[in-house]
């Protein structure tokens, strides 16, 4: 198989997997945070801050994956 097309394919599949993983991660995080602040509305502010930090960290990992995918596609262009 043509290595260039394989690289494109892997970049696409990789980006999809990253999206699935991050979506699940942040989704679970948001669900728990919502549940927490529904049970204890007075803790809402704290929960939100912690949630945003945790979401940013999950996102950071996702971006590492995305950067690898982007590099794969850029390599094939150059």
């Amino acid at each position, binding site marked *: 198989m043509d290595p260039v097309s394989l690289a494109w394919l892997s970049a696409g599949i990789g980006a999809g997997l990253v999206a699935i993983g991050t979506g699940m991660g942040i989704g679970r995080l948001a669900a728990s945070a919502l549940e927490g602040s529904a049970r204890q509305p007075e803790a809402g502010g704290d929960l939100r*801050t912690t949630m*945003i*930090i945790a979401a*940013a*960290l999950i*996102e*950071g990992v996702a971006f590492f994956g*995305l*950067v690898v995918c982007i590099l794969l596609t850029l390599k094939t262009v150059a």
Partner: protein
Amino acid sequence: MTNRFFRAPLFGALLALVMVGTIAPAHAAGEDGEFDAIGHTMDGNYLDFSPFGKVELPRIFLVRKADGSIGLDVYGSTKQALLTGDYVMASSYADEAHAEDGYGDAEESAYGEAGYGDAPADEATATQEAISKGKHLYGGLTRAKGDVIVDFSITRHLLFAWLAILILCLLFIPMAGKYKQGIGRTEAPRGKKMNMLETLVLYIRDEVARPNLGEKTDKFLPYLLTIFFFILTCNLLGLIPFGATATANITTTAVLAIFTFIVTQFAGTKDYWMHVFNPPGIPWFVKPIMIPIEFLGLFIKPFALAIRLFANMTAGHLVILNLIGLIFAIRAILGDGAGWGTAVPSYFLTVFIYGLEVLVAFIQAYVFTILSALFIGMAAAEHEHHGHEPHAHEQTVGTEAVI
């Protein structure tokens, strides 16, 4: 009702996306690659005012000349640098033009290898052609004789970073003067601008800095505020028409992250360094594993900061450009009618993503600031050691989990 109203275009767009995904590769090869989504978000030596045209920015090079001396070359624009003949294009476009010319020659002249002698003339025509097509802005430049040591050229991201600095200075220096006079301290702040900015400043102080830094807040607050407002301004400048996002450049975000890294290391107490190089409260045989991890963690944290901001700012713009590009992709495949049909959902999705981008501009500035505050706070915290209790151990684990 509203649900159904929203769902239909979304579903259509999704369907279109799937269709493009399956059909586009076959057609994309045949298309002329005029729509360059990646190039738009990347740095460049021009300001993009399309459709009104482009303004070229100055080029400055530190060069080693052919005779070995070091000098500075300054040109008003990329075009000038090329026209003086000191510089040639290093891009694939020039090579392409070259290859085409060579091919044409071979076809035209039945004599065969006539084209090799006049290479310089060939290059000049290729350069001329590239300039007339406006493609000279997309490739690198190399010096014809000697080589470039550092490219100091003023790029558009640099220009927009300067613009952000200028805006911040114009906003905050008069504000600081007012506070020195007592307006806002002894009486209520006056005017919309002052009230708005005070809200943001107080939010950063009370919600971001205080919880993480405690009593050392005042020492690090100026840094946190500067970084927050700079990132925010850069992000928002990228959202105005003809703007460019300076924070969508890995160099900008890396420099910001390096600032946080340096501030963190200088804020570090004895406890902080001990936790890195001799973590207390863990068995001796774990230490050979823990110490390298802790040490690497010092660098991974700012690295993640830089990548996060860069990727967030780039990704949003790419999504918008791709949604707009979808119209043309579909038009190329299914004809004009389908193109017009795609324009409607594509437009609404673009507006939606743009709204999201405004949100992301604030969130990312906030995230960068709060993580900086967190890292600095962890380094600057002076926790008491009650012997070697699990508490101290937990602190170490917490540090790792935060990367």
